[in-house]
């Protein structure tokens, strides 16, 4: 009964998730549960599968889910198209946002916002209301208004792209935001501004999965839990102090740990 209650409260519940790309396995049994309002950090060496996990949650079709389940609120997430997931409140801030020459940022954002609003059977916003909304959000992430009329991410600097992701998040108002290395490429001030933007959106039921390599970001966005991903599995979880420990000690302990695990499997 109490276990059931617990499940009820989860916003995301990932069980034994296996995913592969073109036949090679990348996620090898991910388990992760988030309660509404929680911030979870995922760290781990390059190539361990962090972005893959984030993209699988967002519904990228290049990855094949081989096994496992993902419940999101009361939905079977893996059954939904990417756009349905977005409309249901999942937002992925991309590690490498694509640029789309020929579509203005404003047009893109308004199309996205109205798509979500139509899905929720809310009235669409007109150009005037939209501009008002987007202006206030741009202030939040310290973004130059000129970037609204430019093509989506086209010729944006690394930092501008990341801010643009956070702007989209602020406009779309998701329930679960997944930030994939949003801190990389940001200078110290930008990092602070983006983190403040995220913190401003924190609270209530909104949950975050923050993928990062640097504990520095987690000084600003203090996580409730920190997980270490290695070879497509979460191999360690802890509280925010784990991030500090990783910062000091790196991932060398994984090698031996995994070697041990593997040899156990072999025997």
């Amino acid at each position: 009964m109490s276990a059931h209650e617990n499940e009820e409260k989860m916003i995301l519940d990932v069980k034994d998730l296996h995913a592969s790309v073109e036949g090679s396995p990348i996620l090898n049994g991910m388990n992760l549960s988030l309660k509404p309002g929680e911030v979870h950090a995922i760290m781990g060496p390059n190539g361990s599968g962090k972005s893959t996990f984030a993209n699988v949650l967002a519904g990228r079709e290049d990855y094949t889910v081989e096994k496992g389940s993902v419940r999101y609120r009361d939905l079977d997430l893996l059954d939904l198209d990417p756009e349905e997931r977005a409309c249901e409140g999942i937002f992925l801030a991309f590690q490498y946002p694509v640029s789309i020459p020929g579509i203005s940022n404003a047009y893109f954002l308004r199309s996205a916002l109205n798509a979500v609003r139509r899905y929720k059977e809310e009235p669409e916003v007109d150009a005037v209301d939209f501009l008002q909304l987007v202006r206030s959000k741009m202030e939040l992430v310290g973004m130059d208004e000129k970037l609204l009329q430019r093509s989506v991410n086209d010729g944006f600097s690394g930092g501008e792209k990341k801010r643009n992701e956070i702007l989209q998040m602020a406009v779309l108002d998701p329930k679960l935001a997944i930030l994939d290395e949003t801190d990389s490429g940001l200078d110290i001030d930008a990092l602070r501004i983006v983190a403040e933007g995220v913190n401003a959106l924190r609270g209530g039921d909104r949950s975050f999965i923050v993928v990062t390599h640097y504990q520095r970001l987690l000084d600003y966005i203090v996580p409730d839990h920190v997980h270490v991903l290695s070879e497509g599995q979460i191999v360690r979880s802890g509280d925010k102090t784990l991030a500090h420990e990783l910062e000091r000690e790196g991932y060398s302990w994984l090698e031996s740990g995994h070697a041990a695990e593997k040899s156990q499997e072999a025997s």
Partner: protein
Amino acid sequence: MSTGTVDHWNPNLEEQCSGLHAACESLEARRKHGLNQFLEAGFPGRKDEEWRYTPLRSVAEGEYSSKLSVEGQLPGDDELATSSDIRLVLINGRFREDLSDLTALPDTVKVVGLSRSLETSADSVVTDLNRWIPLVDHPFQNIGDALLEDGLVITAEGNVDARIHIVHGQDGSESAGSSHVSGLIRLSGGAQLEVLEEFRSRGKSLANIRWGMEIGSGCEFRRQRIVRPGCDVLYHGTRVELGEKAVFRDLIAGSGARLVRNEIHAILAGPGGHVDLLGGYVSNGDEIVDHHTTIEHAVADCTSREIYRGVLGGDSRGAFTGMIHVHQDAQRTDAEQSNDAILLSRSAEMNTRPRLEIYADDVKCTHGATVGELDDDSIFYLRSRGVSLEEARRMLVRAFTAEVFEELENEALKEQFIEQLQEAMPTAVDLRQ
């Protein structure tokens, strides 16, 4: 050469030609020339390099060889957001003054129906036609000459900036056939003129339209053409000569026509001239869109730019042939050319033939061609923001053709052009079939 295929055309053409009113000898001579050329050459076959990607078999087979009825109605009623209040309507190749609105025409711009001016001043009109639309051996031009009868003569002179909307209506709903329009546009004394040329069609029909243009020194002529869905066969030929510092800006957009052949021959004959040829289209089914351009840099210090972008689905085919001919004296020529295509299906096809003939040495000529698919990463990015697959694909068509439309000043019209192309995108369901 194309034996058999002209069986229907030849007798029909001879009969129609001899039935025309002979206003003067030079007109008669021009018609005879066209007729004889056609009787001799007929329609080109697939082996003719100039027509390799535009099979004319279905046109040659004769259904089109009669003239469309004079009684035709203007098809379609959704109006374009044109910023012009001068409206010229042609139906089945006849200039319909009764349906046109010339009240806002400034004194400095003159519009006369070709058939009317052949009545009043045949000799001088034919002289102008011979000058600005010289005889060439070309199947549609030959037919156009044999049946030379109606069209438009537009002149703009001096300090004027006017906008004209021309609607070509083709009504083949009663019975199939063709229409033939010859037009002259002449600008002088620094005139500025903008023409929106719209093609609407119903039923089976061949629209055979050609223009001869003179853009005098310091004049600017802007033309937008929109091929509305439902057109059958459209041949559209333009020959344009530019004087010193004259500018020609052309844009063609379209979707949903069975066969479009757009030919432009632009001659930069005075220093400082500029030509812009832009095109954007979406094709489906077994449609064919063929842009065939020649830009002649005859003198020094001229610039030209060509951008054609096509999105092709189904079994449709696109072709682009772009000749840039830089004469020996045309130093400091700057010519840019690009033709890009997105193929939505395996059986869609794009053929690009850049042709550069450069006889001057101080010349900047660039040409590029790309063929690709809609970018999956961009589609996923859009979908991850809540935009449906269908809308994401439509947005990428907008993105792809953006460069073609970006300089169109009339925002409402621009939106209509882009929307027409977006509407023509095959749905994701169609694609899976």
